């Protein structure tokens, strides 16, 4: 494949965006959907072609192309340049493949929505920026994609912009991401200062030589981690992701589960040379990842909104990826990124199908017994649930297990501790996913599924345990007409579900470890990226296997997942009311439940500790003093002084002929006086 053709991959969705964005309003729905699908299918085909090209090459191949010199300032140069290596290829496959499936799903899901063309043009715009992000061969172009996906995310979270909560969620996502971007920008400035370049190859080639000299490498790496934490929703910047669920469900699947939020992980993996030489920063990545994984999983256990459970689960799984990168197991992180893209996109889309089936209901307390009514959704979602819970031989098992093994073999007390956190998280993940599964698909159908909107007040039933901030659903999500019993979604929606379910099941088989008789192909595939070999050396070195330890660890994690399943089964299937009783058992459990239910009050702490003081400073100092006082004041002084001069000069223009004549006579008299008596430079 000609490297020049790389340009087509991002440009095509951009063309789709332009077409739908300009003409979409006048086109019929079929036309809009056709354009959007065509311009995402073509890049997917190109990526497939690229895949074949690179697979059939003898040596690890890197394609690169540069369109033009974007910025040239005395020796410092940034190009509009793309390059593809094996890491990029995996990302491209995930983005275009999952992206295309979600586009198909959206055609069905959004069929009855206003702003159809707007939705699809935004979605194509997102694809464009995401592809720029993964294809770029320098930090600045990556940052362009990085900001662009942030913009698309903002637009799509606030898609139902007439709804206050959606508009606010969009703003929150955008502003929280600004904090991360600030770190990214500073990192880029430091890179320019120390390397004089932002090109990946140039920077990474210089790093090994600087190894001994560099506290600044750690600084750059930490700033990049801040950026990645913003984009990938890690502690302390994860707060935007749960709120981002205000967007349409396919958007949550595409942007807030499968692709955009993994950009941080991708960026860390891309900069692995940098991080390898900044071990302190790498430890920070691992700790952040482990903490986030556990933290988000605990919150996910008590959420009632089906999408919010999945949102916290996404944060938790992203924590896993960070953890993997943090112990230097980048390929394990990317492997999990890939499998997660499959099963989490599947889970979101299936959840969307459930919501669609119930006419907009998102609260799991008003679901139940949907197994028979929406069988395709049930079976596909089951695949996703089992995959994320880590049940072998589904994809999630292999990727999660690889991460846990890598963390364990990282060694030291920290390694063991992180492994333990990861293991507990795996158990919690299994628990909350099966909780969701049981509550949604098993048990008795909720009465609200047959009547309409006469929903008993569950808040009172749960007493103080349930906070009042739960959004009332039945808003604009999905079709607005009243439903008469749940119904299966149209084929446009179930088809992507089936494909993704298949991927969620078999997607992990590319990474079966050696001890379990596999080839661990994904690690082979990514090996040239993460362990570049000098020319002439053997391409595929031997991989160390964990032997019995690895098998034991796998066994432990399967048992943990099974324990999660067992508890979920106990609490939500056998005795559905038992969880409430457990919570009410004594004040400590109630307190713990409250803590989780309020998400550790993090939003409130941020509100009081950061947002309110910042707003205060902005209002009093920036708005009151700087803006009103200095900026507006100086403009006022200028305007008023001009007005004053005008007032003075206006006196002369009286409109009275005789006063003009008087001035004329006076002037003439002055001229005469000057000529007669004055000093005249021309005459002397």
């Amino acid at each position, binding site marked *: 494949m000609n490297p020049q053709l790389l340009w087509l991959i991002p440009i095509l969705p951009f063309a789709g965006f332009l077409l739908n964005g300009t003409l979409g309003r006048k086109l019929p729905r079929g036309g809009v959907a056709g354009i959007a699908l065509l311009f995402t299918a073509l890049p997917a085909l190109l990526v497939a072609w690229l895949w074949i090209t690179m697979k059939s090459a003898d040596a690890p191949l890197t394609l690169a192309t540069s369109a033009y010199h974007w910025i040239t300032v005395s020796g410092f140069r940034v190009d509009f340049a793309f390059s593809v290596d094996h890491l990029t290829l995996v990302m491209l496959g995930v983005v275009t493949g999952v992206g295309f499936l979600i586009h198909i799903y959206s055609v069905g899901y959004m069929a009855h929505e206003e702003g159809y063309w707007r939705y699809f043009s935004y979605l194509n715009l997102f694809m464009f920026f995401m592809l720029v992000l993964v294809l770029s061969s320098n930090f600045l172009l990556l940052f362009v994609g990085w900001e662009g996906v942030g913009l698309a995310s903002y637009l799509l979270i606030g898609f139902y912009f007439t709804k206050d909560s959606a508009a606010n969620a969009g703003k929150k996502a955008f502003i929280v991401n600004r904090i991360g971007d600030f770190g990214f920008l500073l990192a880029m400035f430091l890179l320019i200062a120390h390397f004089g370049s932002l090109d990946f190859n140039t920077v990474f080639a210089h790093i090994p030589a600087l190894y001994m000299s560099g506290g600044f490498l750690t600084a750059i790496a930490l700033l990049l981690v801040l950026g990645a934490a913003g984009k990938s929703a890690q502690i302390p910047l994860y707060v935007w992701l749960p709120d981002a669920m205000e967007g349409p469900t396919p958007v949550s699947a595409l942007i807030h589960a499968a692709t955009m939020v993994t950009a941080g992980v991708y960026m860390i993996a891309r900069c692995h040379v940098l991080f390898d030489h900044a071990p302190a920063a790498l430890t920070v990545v691992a700790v952040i990842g482990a903490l986030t994984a556990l933290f988000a999983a605990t919150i996910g256990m008590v959420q009632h909104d089906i999408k919010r459970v999945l949102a916290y689960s996404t944060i938790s799984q992203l924590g896993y990826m960070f953890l993997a990168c943090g112990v230097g197991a980048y390929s394990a992180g990317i492997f999990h990124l890939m499998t997660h893209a499959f099963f989490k996109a599947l889970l979101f889309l299936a959840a969307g199908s459930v919501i669609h089936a119930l006419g907009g209901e998102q609260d799991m307390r008003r679901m139940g017994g949907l197994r028979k009514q929406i069988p395709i959704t049930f079976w596909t979602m089951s695949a996703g649930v089992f995959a994320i819970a880590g049940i072998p031989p589904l994809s999630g098992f292999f990727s999660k297990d690889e991460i846990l093994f890598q963390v364990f073999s990282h060694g030291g007390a920290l390694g063991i501790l992180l492994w333990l956190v990861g293991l507990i998280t795996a158990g919690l993940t299994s628990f909350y996913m099966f909780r969701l599964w049981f509550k949604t698909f098993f048990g008795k159908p909720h009465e609200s599924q047959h009547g309409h909107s006469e929903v008993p007040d569950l808040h009172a039933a749960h007493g103080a345990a349930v906070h009042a901030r739960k959004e009332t659903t039945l808003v604009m999500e999905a079709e607005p007409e009243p439903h008469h019993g749940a119904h299966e979604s149209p084929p446009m929606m179930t088809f992507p579900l089936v494909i993704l379910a298949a991927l969620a099941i078999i997607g992990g088989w590319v990474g079966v470890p050696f001890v379990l008789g596999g080839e661990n192909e994904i690690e082979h595939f990514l090996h040239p990226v993460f362990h570049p070999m000098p020319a002439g050396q053997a391409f595929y070195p031997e991989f160390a296997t964990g032997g019995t330890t690895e098998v034991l660890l796998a066994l432990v994690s399967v048992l943990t997942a099974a324990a999660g399943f067992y508890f979920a089964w106990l609490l939500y299937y056998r005795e559905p009311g038992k969880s409430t009783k457990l919570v009410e058992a004594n004040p400590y459990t109630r307190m713990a439940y409250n803590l989780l239910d309020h998400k550790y009050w993090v939003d409130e702490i941020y509100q009081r500790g950061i947002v309110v003081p910042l707003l205060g400073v902005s209002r009093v100092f920036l708005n009151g003093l700087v803006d009103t006082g200095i900026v507006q004041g100086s403009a006022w002084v200028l305007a008023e002084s001009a007005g004053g001069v005008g007032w003075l000069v206006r006196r002369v223009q009286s*409109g009275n*002929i*005789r006063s003009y*004549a*008087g001035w004329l*006579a006076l002037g003439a008299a002055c001229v005469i006086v000057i000529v007669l008596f004055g000093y005249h430079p021309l005459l002397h």
Partner: protein
Amino acid sequence: MVPIAYYLVLAAILFCIGVAAFLMKRNIITIFMSIELMLNAVNLTFVAFAHQWHQISGQIFVFFVMVVAAAEAAVGLAIIIALFRVRQTLNVDQVNLLKN
């Protein structure tokens, strides 16, 4: 022979009287007359210099000034009569409809 300075001083005095009258009077006919006065002061200067330097062009110019002044008087007086018929006044300060 009368020195030229006498003519010039007389012309200057006449001109200044014309200017002063133009600036101070409100009656439009008086203003008209003061303009004539200024024109004639200038004519006197022309003639004086023409005589002094034996140049005929100054004399010729005076005829032009007189022709223009006559034409101006004919038009101006017609306007004044028309104005008086409409406004019943000759005070220029009251003829300010187009102002502002």
